[in-house]
């Protein structure tokens, strides 16, 4: 595999660029924290 062809311009699947994909990962983390907080409070 020629790594020179592996440039930073490759797009992730379903997204136009990497930035929204990164936001999705961080957003999922925030969502998980909110859900876990809700679970903690609800069952306490």
């Amino acid at each position: 595999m020629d790594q020179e062809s592996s440039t930073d311009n490759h797009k992730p699947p379903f997204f136009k660029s990497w930035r929204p994909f990164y936001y999705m990962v961080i957003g999922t983390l925030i969502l998980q924290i909110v859900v876990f907080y809700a679970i903690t409070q609800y069952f306490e």
Partner: protein
Amino acid sequence: MSYLDWGVLVGTLAFIALYGMWKTRGSQNIEGYLKGNNSEKWWTICLSIMATQASAITFLSTPGQAYEDGMRFLQFYFGLPIAMVIISVSFIPIYYRLKVYTAYEFLESRFDLKTRSLAAFLFLVQRGLAAGITIYAPAIILSSILGWNVNTTNIILGLVVVLYTVTGGTRAVSVTQKQQMAVMMGGMIVAGIIVINMLPPDVSFYDAVQVAGKMDKLNLINFSFDWNDRYNVWSGVTGGLFLFMSYFGTDQSQVARYLSGKSITESRLGLLFNGLLKIPMQFIILFIGVMVFVFYQFVQPPVFFNKVVKERLYETSYAGNLIQLETEHNANFKEKTRVVKDMLRGIQAEDQTAINSARAELNGIEAEGKAIRNEVKSLLQKANPKAEVKDTDYVFISFVMQYMPTGIIGLLLAVIFCASMSSTSSELNALASTTVIDMYKRSFRTQASDTHYLQASKLFTIGWGLFAILFATLASQLDNLIQAVNILGSLFYGTILGIFVVGFYLKYIKANAVFWAAVVAEALVILTYTTTEVGFLWLNPIGCLLVIGFGYFFQVVLPQKR
């Protein structure tokens, strides 16, 4: 253990090892052996990264930790997705552009040979010792529970891993880790379903979760900041971020996993999906531990989960005291079950007064139960000062051995062995590539053929494998070794991360300054650990920030080359 369990265990492990060897058979070159010919897709990378991180202790200790302490340990992983994004943005493009085999090669192109060698040396020391513990830790627990000889377990486990890692290199590690990860997650999900089905007929799943919540086991989130509290959102996001950036960004056992990717895209996706899946995976494992806890509210648990250590106490003059404590423990359990059932009726009737009254009563009963268990532990220590009195690691495996159906026991033991083998194979592969690329090829034998370096890589894999097995065998003669090696990791990770952070982001700081900053930072981290009470997780950011701070200082103070 039944023949069926033996069949499932041996069959699973043998199939994975043989499949790995068969799949990676044929001629190889050094590129293929150390980087898997850059052929891996993102899902293989993701599973490989997860399997490398998940050691046997993950499956033995984590449910036990949830049993004792609830699910708050989950917060430790909150820094991980952020670390995955930072590594995807900053680290991966540079590693790909420089076409490196190891992370430490980057340091020579950015700084100089001595900085590269220092980071590679720190990695080899820390990871070389950790590889021995990765084999030893499950072996000591399994041998204690199953009565196997610990050294035989070490040697068999170690040799199987060495065999397929030497044969197929990085590709064999990735190929086998896919199967191992499938066994691990499949086995744990089956275990979770069975635990929930084993609850008493009048206790529904919702009731079980309610009971767990009322008994403070669903303590997933804690926003209050406290330096002394190891697990809260803030320590997880900050301390965890530094730890995971160092582990995934600079530890060759992880870097090698995503450098085997077909392209930057595949490597990034592998890392980012790890960021999406890791927290739910830990949630499942911790939740299984909580369900085991609920199960033991209705079925009597042992007073001490490490059966072998407890039974040795019966052979001493403390046997009478132990019997007395067990009687008190039984009475305490009956009382607790009665109150838990009262609470459950309150939950089902939505009677908050009954729930609150039961909770208040349970606090007292639980404190009494804890005091009884502590007395048993102090008896164990009186009888044998070297006895292992922490039984958290034995909670899940003793539950599996006592209550799981035939066949599932073999599957869950395979989970534990797969976890140990997947971590060890990555470690041996990374140790060999770092030794060959950063030491042997760079400083000792600079002009040899690819075939020579391929042979050297195989020999170093065998060498590190034998070292790990030997260390695992000697480990049983040393006290608190597991903790010592975990701390050893945190002692070095911060400094290594600091060197890389300076390399990536702080162009002003040059080679000599970062080298001496790393030496001073490492000394100060060790001094901090030996002279203060700072929790070892905090040593990661401390080490990193010290390298940055002293880097600036030395850059100003040291004479510059013209």
